[in-house]
């Protein structure tokens, strides 16, 4: 049975994932044109992140409305069209800024986490 501590850990993890979601989607589209299912596979393969399938499409709609993505329907061998997405110039700029912030944040918190790791070994 989950404890309160487990619940709190779960909420914290959910918030962390929520905060990294836009960056993950922008990063997976870096230099590529992909359709939704391909993005889900790439996210899983490249980072182990499993984005909820029903979560991806509303996010793609929002990022497109914000002018960070463009899309087009392409007829595929599958027998039905697929909607391909790619980054706009604004999307690339946003991805760069977010990656910079992410790297800076993880670098600065790593020092603190080293102390936690050291403490756990003792």
């Amino acid at each position, binding site marked *: 049975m989950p404890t309160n501590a487990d619940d709190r850990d779960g909420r914290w993890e959910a918030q962390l994932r929520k905060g990294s979601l836009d960056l993950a989607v922008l990063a997976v589209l870096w230099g590529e044109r992909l359709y939704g299912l391909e993005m889900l596979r790439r996210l899983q393969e490249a980072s182990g992140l499993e984005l909820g399938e029903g979560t991806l499409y509303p996010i793609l709609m929002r990022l497109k409305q914000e002018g960070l993505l463009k899309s087009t329907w392409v007829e595929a061998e*599958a027998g039905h069209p697929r909607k391909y997405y790619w980054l706009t110039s604004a999307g690339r700029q946003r991805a760069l800024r977010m990656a910079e912030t992410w790297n800076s944040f993880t670098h600065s918190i790593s020092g603190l986490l080293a102390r936690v790791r050291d403490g756990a070994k003792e």
Partner: protein
Amino acid sequence: MTATLATVEKGSIQEYVKRVSNGLTGIEEAEKQDILAEINSHLSDRIEELRGQGVSHPAEQAFSALGDPAALASQFVAAARQQRASRSYAPWVLLRAAARAASTGAKGMLVFFVGVIGYGAALAFLVAALLKPFFPQMGLWVGSWGFVWGMKSDAVAGRELLGQYFSLASVVLAFLFGSGCTLLLQHLTRPSGSVLRH
């Protein structure tokens, strides 16, 4: 791949898509059709993929992975609403978005209070400007007790600072509070992401 989908699976996809469609309220028709076509395409691909992996009931698993149709539709509607609100200059649209945000947590409550206080102040200044011609005693009153923007009690002494410029100053402040609140709410109601699962 779609060509190999069984008729019953195509029917199931159509049923799922229809249920999503029922929940897509307030979304423009062209955008709605685009969303539904993408879900259709996703499910067709996903069912074929799962069948290739030897899954016994690929359609059921594909629907399960995409989630409840009504919940999926509500995510699209929420994203569209947030987007509309963050671009809108209409106080009622922004306040509605802020009211919805209020139920999501402390930050949402703060956004809502910013909206209520900001627009409330703008309205109060506007009303003060409109009342000035009918109530000449309206003004910026100061005294040893502090100051008041409006009418002071006859029981306390004070002097009025703005005179005939009171209405103009009230309109300027109403504009500043109203536009400032609008820009702030547009920024604060701008959508962020959703939840990743690992």
